[in-house]
Each structure stands twice: as structure tokens, then as C-alpha cells.
């Protein structure tokens, strides 16, 4: 499946969830928020939501420094 992640197209296996995608990318789920197809799913739902062909995903870090 071709999925756009942070503006770049990537090849992702079917059956990947938002949570397993973070694992794949070695991203700590507690350090980010996700926008999936312009919606912002609740964190608790990340393990259920399947990534599909053509999806647009933004993974945004928690940043609080000034």
C-alpha cells in the first residue's frame, strides 16, 4: 500500500494500524499526536485504526521548548 506519511509516500504493509506504524518507525506513541486523513483520532483508538492505501498521515511531535 502507498501511504503518505509526513508528506512522503511510503510502502506500508496491509494490516498496519496507526499504533503499529509508530512501532515500525520507532516512534514512542507518548511523544506524538497523529492526524489521519485530516481527522485527529483519539490516542486510545490508534491500535484499532487500520492504515489504508492512499491514506494521509501526519505524525507531530510534542514540542514545548521555548
Amino acid at each position: 500500500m502507498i501511504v503518505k506519511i509526513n508528506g512522503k509516500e511510503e510502502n506500508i504493509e496491509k494490516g498496519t494500524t496507526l499504533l503499529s506504524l509508530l512501532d515500525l518507525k520507532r516512534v514512542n506513541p507518548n511523544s506524538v499526536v497523529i492526524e489521519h486523513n485530516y481527522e485527529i483520532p483519539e490516542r486510545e483508538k490508534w491500535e484499532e485504526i487500520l492504515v489504508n492505501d492512499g491514506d494521509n498521515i501526519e505524525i507531530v511531535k510534542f514540542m514545548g521548548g521555548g
Partner: protein
Amino acid sequence: MLSESDLSRYERQIMLDGIGIKGQEKLKSSKVLVAGVGGLGSPAAYYLTAAGIGTIGLADFDEVSLSNLNRQILHATNDIGRFKIDSAAEKLSSLNPDVQINKHCIKLTHENIADTVKNYDVIIDAVDNFETRFLINDSCYFLQKPVIEGAVCGFEGLLMTIVPGKTPCYRCLYPDLPKEKSFKGIIGTTAGVIGSLQAFEAVKLLLGIGGPLFGRLLIFDGLNSSFRVIDWSKKRSCPLCGENATIKNPAKY
């Protein structure tokens, strides 16, 4: 009304479409609070001062230390040990003596936040911790004050402009405190970019020109030289501005 000196000082921006004499007068009558006079606050306050914002409030209770000086360009080596507010006010007044600088040498808390922000038109969030960011954003939501939200870490930064009732709020992006705190370094140039852009957003908002980051998030990757701007919409389940909002007062952490 602009003086002869103003016309000279701001000549180069008055000639720009979108500013002009009327725009410059608007900036002169505007009041912006810069919360945090550190890495982001330094460039933000500098450029607001240069642009001729009439009143600039500075809110910070910290003292200058040596490790600040890789990025906090409002302060100098001779200022180590001084309150950042005093150091900042001195440099800003030197750049532009006509700007009224209000010093708020306080830690922003639930007790003082409303009184601090109420007299300003726009608030620039340049603080260095999430608890205060949530305090500022929750309070400004209830007080209907726009916030220019900027944050940095390492070589990366984020920026969005929040107008209560019009745009997504801070909690549409970050619903609550992150579960884990991490401390990474920061290089000055990252803060320079985002802080300057915060001042830019404030100017655009005050003048009603251009396209501020309403419902959009700017993501800066300094290492790879990229700016991305993505849509970030209001979250229906947002605890602050959503359909069944649960937060009725600024949250306490």
C-alpha cells in the same frame, strides 16, 4: 499619529502594500505580550520592537545564565545574574525608545494570568514548559485572546495561530500534557526562525493582512531545510473547544 521620526524609522515597511501609514498607526496602537523572554521570546520581542508595536509586555521571572546564551539573543554575557526582564527591556528600548515596554517579572499562574493578559491584543507563547502553555492557552481561550503558539526542540519547530472561536485551539493539537517529559538540546537558529515567525504572525494578525496560520500548523525541520504547512482542523472531541467540552476553567497541573 506618526511623528517625523516614525516616518523615517518605519519608512521601509510603510512603503509595503498592506502596511502603509494606516497600518503603521495600527501597529503603534497595538499591544502584544511576549510570554517568556528566552529563545523564542528574544527574536519575537526584537522584531516586534523593530516593527513599531506601541506596547510590548514581557513576562518572565527567570535570571540570565550562561547556558542561555547560545540562543537567547536579547541577553549578553554582562547580563548573567540579572532578571531577563530587565536585560530584555534595556536592549529593546535601545533599539526603539518609542516602544512602551511593560515588565511582568512574574511566574504566570492561575492567580495572575487573567490580569496579565487582559490588556493585550495578542499573546505570543514563548514559554519553555507545557504546564504554562496549557495555562496560557486555556486562559486565552476563555478570555478570547489570540495566541501565537510556537515551540522548538533540537533542530525542529512548530507554529500555529490561535484565535478563540475562529480556529482550532491548542488542545485540538495537544489534548493534554504529554505522558513523558523529554529534554533535548536546542540550537539558537531553530529558535530564531520560529520566534521571528511568531512576530510575523502577530503583525499579520494585527494588520489583518496575508494568511496567518489559522487552522494550519507550520512544521519546521531545520536540519533538512524544510518548512511544511499542514491543515489542522478543530477536533470535535476537543476538551476545550469541542462539542462536549469538559474544561470550563484553565486546567491546574
